[in-house]
């Protein structure tokens, strides 16, 4: 985990090409260690998907990358600057090195192509010269890996259930033995039973194959359970980045706290839920200071005028509050009754 595979630094993204553009990502830096599961959390619309797409230049129009770098360090020691690669090299690197499972598997599979074809065509594109029969064998193997009988190869996407489709996508992501797998909310819209099946399969495969995972969701409880490290985003920035257990035990950023205080625990004593007051910010016109300040219970004058930087060594957070000041004080996982 000491040597990163993916290093994102200063990444900024706009939607729109003009002055009225939405600045969806601002100066985001993040690194992903080898073999690590990095959870990316944050409320809806804070830019999680944007980050995933921008890292591989897959943002649809009117997306525009306005700055930053995405460096990929391969196992062989080369370093690729993904944002500067020419088209064909980027094409070659995609999926081979970094695979993505997109939000909503329903739409990720071409509805008019057989699942098997969609699995083999990516192999054929990256491994030309290898006979088709080999690809087919591999595709069967992959489906087995995610628990789908190999005889579903000739099925069309609509003939599979949502969970099955999601697993096909995961199988596809692993087809070329990539080093990084980015998963954008792979389990929303699935019920908890299926969700758990998929997540557990993924963790097992990670252990087996040794790839790194970026796992995006706004379901914090799921992340805490499965991720090694969690980065929390708010309004296009990362506000906290720390190991999962530590974030849960001791959140530093008031937003993270609010997040953790918003979901009821399934087990254990009932506790009061704090929630986060106010509404999410408008990305097109953010306040000059800390974006969370208007909703923050601890905001003070400085927060309004100045923007806190992400800092703090191993446990990064972007807040002017002292690391164990008021936050610790309001930390009220206090049992009710």
């Amino acid at each position, binding site marked *: 985990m000491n040597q990163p595979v993916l290093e994102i630094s200063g990444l900024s993204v706009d939607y*729109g*090409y003009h002055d009225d553009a939405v600045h969806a990502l601002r*100066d985001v830096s993040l690194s992903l260690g080898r073999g690590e599961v990095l959870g990316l959390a944050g409320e*809806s619309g804070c830019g999680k998907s944007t980050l995933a797409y921008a890292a591989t230049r*897959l*943002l649809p129009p*009117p997306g*525009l*990358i306005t*700055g930053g770098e995405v460096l990929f360090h391969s196992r062989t020691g080369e370093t690729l600057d993904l944002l500067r690669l020419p088209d064909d090299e980027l094409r070659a690197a995609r999926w081979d090195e970094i695979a993505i499972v997109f939000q909503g598997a329903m739409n990720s599979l071409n509805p008019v192509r057989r699942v098997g074809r969609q699995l083999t065509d990516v192999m054929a594109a990256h491994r030309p010269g290898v006979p088709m029969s080999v690809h087919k064998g591999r595709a069967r193997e992959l489906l087995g890996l995610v628990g789908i009988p190999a005889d579903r190869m000739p099925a069309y996407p609509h003939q599979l259930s949502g969970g099955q489709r999601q697993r096909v996508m995961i199988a596809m992501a692993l087809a070329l033995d990539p080093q990084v797998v980015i998963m954008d909310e792979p389990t929303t819209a699935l019920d908890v039973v299926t969700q758990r099946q998929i997540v557990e399969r993924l963790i097992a495969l990670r252990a087996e194959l040794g790839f790194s995972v970026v796992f995006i969701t706004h379901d914090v409880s799921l992340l805490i359970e499965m991720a090694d490290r969690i980065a929390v985003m708010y309004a296009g920035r990362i506000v906290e980045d720390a190991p999962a257990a530590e974030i849960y035990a001791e959140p530093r950023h008031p937003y993270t706290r609010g997040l953790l205080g918003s979901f009821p625990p399934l087990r254990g004593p009932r506790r009061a839920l704090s929630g986060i007051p106010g509404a999410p910010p408008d990305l097109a016109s953010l306040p000059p200071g800390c974006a969370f300040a208007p909703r923050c219970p601890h905001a003070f004058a400085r927060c309004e005028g100045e923007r806190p930087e992400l800092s703090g060594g191993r446990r990064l957070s972007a807040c002017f509050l002292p690391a164990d000041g008021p936050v610790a004080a309001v930390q009220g996982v206090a049992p009710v009754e």
Partner: protein
Amino acid sequence: MATTTPTALVTPRRGFRLVLRNRKAAAGLIILGVFALVAALGELIAPYDPDALSPALLEGPSGAHWLGTTNTGQDILSQLIAGTRGVLLVGLLAGAIATVLSIVVGVTAGFVGGAGDEALSLLANVFLVIPALPLIIIVASLLPSAGGTTVALVIGLTGWAWGSRILRAQTLSLRRRDFVQAARANGESLWRIVFFEILPNLTAIIASGFIGTVIFAVLSQITLAFIGVTSVSDWNWGTILFWAQSNQALAQGAWWWFVPAGLCIALLGTALTLVNFGIDEFVNPRLRTGGNRPVKGIRPRVGFTPVRRKETS
């Protein structure tokens, strides 16, 4: 916050502004405006009485007759100007009739479902199956005199089937939308659901269908006038072409008699199509070519996001 606004479900008010902001649609609207103005002013700006004969027989464009004259010495520019009103009125009237019919049939079919749907779909299908132009010719000859209104009526009465099919499909999907169910659960009556919940959501499709029908009506009207089925006593561009053709203007080398009317039709059609682009792009935000100004150095592409580094971010 809403990253996925369902298509076609944007408020009309905002929609109109969006359509206007679209450059293609704006160009179309400007051309339409010019035609509308000419149609409204008509005789006022026509240099001559379009019917008046003169001794200048079949003369090419000149200072006196900007677009030349016919073989009986009538001024072609005046005919063109006088004909604009007929073309626009028939197009709009036919479009309106067909649109109303397609709404009535399509929305009802989509909304009631079951046997009523089958029957109405059948009706629409029969109208689709019977070829439009011959049907129009037949119906036009059913009536004693095929003047502008008649033609509009006939085109309107025969040209609604396509639109109704599309509206039916849309209504079917809208009917299942939660907000319709919600209105029902809230206790709204059926007719209110149809008129206040479903119809407003079809505005863009209806508008686009209306414009499509207007184009169809204009072309049909002109074709009918050209083959001499309809009355040639009211001036429209088709009548000009009819006279040009029956006097073999092209064979006589009198291009000025034949070409301008055709270009006007094409221009009007283009303008309408451009407006339709605007509506399409509004209904389907994916068709929008981001923003209204082109941006140098940025080529929006699916699959390869452009990178434009600003030194400061």
